[in-house]
């Protein structure tokens, strides 16, 4: 665990820990919903990558913006979302963040500045950069963070928007979650050269960070977010991390592309939650008992939310042609 130069307050430290636990717990429940055939469609688990979303989002204000990905539950929770509205969305229920219309891959929570998950790999890179343009033009002081995977670095859009962000000094942080794989392919097979060098070539200050060390991620993020707010952006982060599950919940037999040993190594030796838990206890932030209690609380929260969502109503069929346009109630009426 990185030795923070700035002493973390107990509040800050515990909040980060809790948020990581919340993400893991959310995902375990979502996976369970899939396995028990209670969830429509497929979904992509963020488990293992919690320190990335939490380390960054804890450096942001609720008014700061993020854009998220197909693997977006972690970003959504980390940016302040509520379990009930999230589970409702995953189950296609009316009380979901998007009234069930978006689902896992489009979950958005604009009240907390989450402009939405995106099912087009790399599809939100322009959106995040545009949010940063708004900040600059309206002088709101908002910072925008664009989350995306290593696979998304193959999308040309990234280079187009990084170029403009650099030319215009936009307050945007590109956060590349390098979990070593895009679907069933290793990163080295799809990414030539160096990912951070690509951003640097556009004159963007870039960093590679241990994405399993929430304190390291948070400390760097705090610095860069502050600087971006002052107009010193953009920045680029490559966060080295790992996804514990398959590409999606249905990707169960995956030895043909990823060794079990490798998975075990990451889970046992680098888990961001285990590491932080040890650190919290060592540094006197919390007792083992308090942390167990926290775990229990979060577990209950999640279970209640799942229960709630399972019983919640679907949107009425009349909703099908609503929200196509802002100014037409039922477009097919």
């Amino acid at each position, binding site marked *: 665990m990185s030795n923070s130069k700035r002493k973390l307050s107990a509040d800050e430290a515990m909040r980060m820990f809790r948020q990581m636990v919340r993400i893991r717990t959310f995902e375990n429940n979502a996976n369970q919903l899939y396995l028990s055939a209670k969830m429509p469609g497929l979904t992509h688990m963020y488990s293992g990558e919690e320190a990335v979303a939490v380390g960054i989002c804890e450096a942001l204000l609720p008014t700061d913006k993020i854009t998220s990905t197909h693997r977006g539950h972690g970003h959504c929770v980390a940016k302040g979302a509520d379990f009930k509205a999230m589970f409702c969305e995953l189950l296609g229920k009316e009380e979901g963040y*998007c009234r*069930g*219309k978006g689902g896992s891959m489009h979950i958005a929570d604009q009240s907390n500045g989450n402009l939405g998950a995106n099912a087009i790999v790399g599809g939100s890179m*322009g959106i995040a950069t*545009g949010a940063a343009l*708004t900040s600059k*033009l309206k002088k709101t002081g908002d910072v925008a963070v664009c989350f995306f995977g290593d696979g998304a670095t193959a999308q040309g859009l990234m280079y*187009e928007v990084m170029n*403009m962000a650099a030319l215009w000094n936009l307050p945007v942080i590109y956060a590349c979650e390098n979990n070593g794989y895009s679907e069933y392919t290793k990163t080295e097979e799809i990414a030539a050269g160096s990912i951070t060098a690509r951003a640097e070539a556009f004159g963007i200050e870039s960093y590679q960070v241990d994405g399993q060390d929430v304190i390291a991620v948070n400390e760097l993020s705090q610095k860069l977010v502050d600087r971006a707010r002052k107009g010193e952006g953009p920045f680029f982060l490559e966060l080295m991390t790992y996804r514990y599950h398959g590409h999606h919940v249905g990707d169960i037999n995956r030895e043909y592309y990823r060794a079990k040993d490798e998975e075990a190594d990451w889970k046992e030796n680098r888990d961001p939650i285990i590491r932080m838990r040890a650190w919290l206890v060592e540094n006197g932030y919390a007792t083992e008992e308090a942390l167990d209690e926290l775990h229990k609380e979060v577990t209950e929260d999640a279970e209640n939310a799942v229960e709630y969502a399972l019983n919640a109503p679907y949107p009425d069929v009349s909703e099908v042609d609503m929200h196509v*346009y802002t100014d037409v109630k039922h477009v097919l009426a």
Partner: protein
Amino acid sequence: MRKITLSKAVNEALAEEMRHDESVIILGEDVAEAGTPFKVLSGLVEEFGTDRVIDTPISEPGFMGIGVGAAMTGMRPVVDLMFGDFIFLIMDQLCNQAAKTHYMSGGKLNVPLVLRTNMGATRRSAAQHSQSLHAIVAHIPGLKVAMPSSAYEAKGLLKTAIRDDNPVVIFEDKLMYQDSAEVPEEEYSIPFGEACVKREGTDITLIGTSSMVQVCEKAAEMLQAVGISAEVIDPRTIVPLDEKTLVESAKKTGRVIVVDEGHQSFGVTSEIASRINEKAFYHLDAPTTRMGAMDVPIPFSPALEDITVPTPERVFEQAKKLVSGELIDAA
């Protein structure tokens, strides 16, 4: 009333809306000092500065995406796409992102963005700078599509587009930038979804979009000379489409030709013809005829290019045939 060019009308609409609302910005290639290659935006950067009239690199997907993000967070970007043909480069940002955001978010996020671009052949610009691609955009729910047929419509529709909270695509005919029309000095706007009956008639209805309205009007005059009374209608927006006005006219005249500069197959004329056939079938004396651009890439050679798009003469000939019942045999 004063007459101004379509180019000037667009320029005025932008200037007025930019004065009216600080959130309105322009994003695109060479929009600032150069005022675009068509000089449509001349003078705007001088009044509004480079913070609001923003020159971009040649990154259409990129600046369209930035426009979407800016729109989602409080700006009202007018994205300038130099040629309509480049819409193929931004389809993902336009159709997968902008068009669907409001719906996918259950009504929580808006994308008040205008994509200003152009269309139209016969400029000797060849296959990648001459297309009229409005049909493919109109197919995607969540987008509105406006097609001004004169300076008057260009100004009024653009103002409405900018104030609309939805993504709107507006196609200007690049051959019409220097065409003049009467445009009031005082402020006005044109609502979406209201067709304009440009000329009343009783024997046949000619429906035209964009520059094809002029083609229909010329054909109508030629028809008048031979004693045929043609009604000419400009839908002005194809999404939303003022089906009512079109269907009523069809019911009245019993014969319809739809003229549009996009490729005919799987194009706008098919949609309009289908709606008319569905809603006015038992009033029609002849099948609704479609006249679009030929289903070929636009050729460069002047000898070939000019015959790819509908002309007043050909609309006139077709109308005569329809009215005289000549086409009955063909069917």
